[in-house]
């Protein structure tokens, strides 16, 4: 018999309790992997939105913590376009709308210029793309169209105004698939934000030292001034910095980790409880093992490995459940436009190691207690 077989027998001997502990760990790991995975997917989705289009810099209102409400005069775009090294600039206005009848809230509504390079990332599934004179037209991402039950040629009421659905598109990006796009001046009129944009997406020329170019243009954009000589108060940020500092993403991550921490504490207490009970029930057995010469370290390993085994099984089950849950959430209209539906391997690895930590933490004290039982007292235990 090998040591691990002995451990396995101990775990299998108490099937119900082992199963309950494993489920406790699995739920904690599911919470961690699903929540952190969703937050991570949200961040990746956001980043790929820019990176896949080759966007090097994002220009927003300086110091604006709430990026959606960032507001910059549209004419700044012309100044940016004139800077050396700048290949393309796309102004963008973004807002969120709700479609109560479809139970959809916070649907992103994008306003783009008719000639924007951003349209290149969209594959038209039906209808056509927006043209310069489609003032009352809107394009819907495929997920949004499905959730609304709309097709091209239908009409859609947005903020009490009727728009024609010109086309349905599929984007490489989940976030955009759950969004709607209209011409920027239409959105400016609709939201009563004339000549204002949320920000600019800037693509730079290819250069041998791109980082240097990005840094130079960034400084130049930050220094732009109005015709009256006043600074515009804008801030250009490299894509990754922009995404990482976006308050919604940071909030999503903070929420995910906070909720996960609570789930983990509950999981660890579950393991602790099981292993303490297990050590208590097996006091005499541990006494026998000690009496016949098992060292304290072997007793510690016995209890810790049992606890780790439960945690590992819990981790595998929990990660599997998180993957299924995250995938299932993409079928739920309310969130389907925000969730990528896949969990990054790194998040699964994090979940796995967190489960190991839960097992170690939950098993540590019982292992210590077990190892320090006096054989003579343990043998007298009934």
């Amino acid at each position, binding site marked *: *018999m090998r040591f691990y077989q002995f451990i396995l*027998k101990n775990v299998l*001997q108490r099937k119900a309790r082992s199963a309950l502990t494993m489920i406790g760990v699995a739920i904690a790991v599911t919470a961690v992997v699903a929540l952190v995975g969703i937050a991570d997917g949200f961040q990746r989705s956001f980043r790929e939105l820019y990176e896949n289009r080759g966007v090097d810099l994002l220009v927003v209102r300086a110091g604006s913590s709430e990026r959606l409400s960032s507001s910059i005069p549209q004419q700044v775009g012309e100044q940016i376009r004139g800077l050396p090294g700048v290949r393309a600039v796309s102004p963008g206005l973004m807002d969120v709308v709700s479609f109560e009848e479809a139970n959809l809230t916070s649907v992103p509504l994008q306003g783009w210029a008719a000639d924007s390079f951003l349209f290149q990332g969209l594959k038209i599934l039906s209808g056509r793309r927006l043209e310069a004179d489609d003032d009352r037209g809107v394009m819907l991402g495929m997920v949004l169209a499905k959730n609304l039950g709309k097709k091209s040629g239908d009409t859609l009421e947005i903020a009490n105004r009727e728009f024609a659905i010109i086309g349905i598109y599929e984007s490489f990006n989940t976030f955009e698939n759950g969004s709607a796009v209209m011409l920027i001046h239409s959105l400016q009129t609709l939201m009563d934000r004339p000549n204002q944009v949320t920000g600019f997406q800037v693509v730079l020329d290819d250069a041998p030292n791109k980082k240097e170019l990005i840094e130079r243009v960034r400084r130049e954009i930050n220094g732009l001034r109005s015709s009256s000589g006043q600074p515009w108060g804008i801030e250009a940020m490299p894509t990754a910095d922009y995404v990482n500092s976006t308050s919604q993403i940071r909030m999503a991550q903070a929420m995910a980790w906070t909720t996960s921490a609570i789930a983990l504490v509950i999981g660890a207490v579950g393991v602790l409880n099981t292993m303490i009970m297990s050590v208590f029930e097996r006091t005499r057995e541990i006494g026998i*093992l000690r009496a016949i010469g*098992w060292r304290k370290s072997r007793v510690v390993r016995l209890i810790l490995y049992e606890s780790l085994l439960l945690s590992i099984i819990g981790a595998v089950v929990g990660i599997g459940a998180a993957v299924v849950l995250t995938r299932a959430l993409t079928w739920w209209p309310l969130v389907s436009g925000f969730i990528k539906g896949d969990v990054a391997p790194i998040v699964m690895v994090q979940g796995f190691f967190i489960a190991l930590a839960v097992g170690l933490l939950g098993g540590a004290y019982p292992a210590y207690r077990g190892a320090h039982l006096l054989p*003579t007292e343990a043998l007298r235990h009934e």
Partner: protein
Amino acid sequence: MSNVPLLRTERLGKTYPDGQVHALVDVTVSIRQGEYVAIMGSSGSGKSTLLNLLGALDQPTSGAVFFENQSLSVIPDLDRFRARKLGFVFQSFFLLPTLTAVENVQIPMFEGPLAVRQREAKARELLGLVGMSHRVNHRPGQLSVGERQRIAIARALANDPVLLLADEPTGNLDSRTAGEVLDLFAHLHRDKGMTIVMVTHGQEVAERAERLIRMRDGRVWS
């Protein structure tokens, strides 16, 4: 039998802190290599306390235990000492209920040098020695009490101990089964040269040993 003491105690005392119970008072005994000794006494006489101290399961309050002329108090790893030098047989057998006979016998071997296959082969050999070859894959719950004690004896022999310590080994057995277990002890002593120290309260059981140490009120009486 050698005249060299394998085990001896010097003015051994044990006082339990709760209520100042003097379980042992100035106990000095000597056990030679290859000797079969019974320690006899009524309940509370201190015989089990003495056995626990001889087996390094507990620490004396005063005095010392010497094994092969070395004080147990200077042995740095008493767990290893117990695993390598001693075999324990208990009144209640203390077999692990989830393990089969052959697995129970292997438990002490985890602290020994044998590889997995060697452990199993040796466990089977020891079960043969105690007449339990036909029960290797049975769990304790599937065995009679006598059979359980035989397996416990096989387990005690797992690491080729120098000394076998038995605490009331026949206490839970009927007279016929007890006789079989004592026959087994006699065989181990006579044919294998095993040193055995057995604690008992039964005169008949004690008489199976070569020498009898009587205890009363924590002292050696005769």
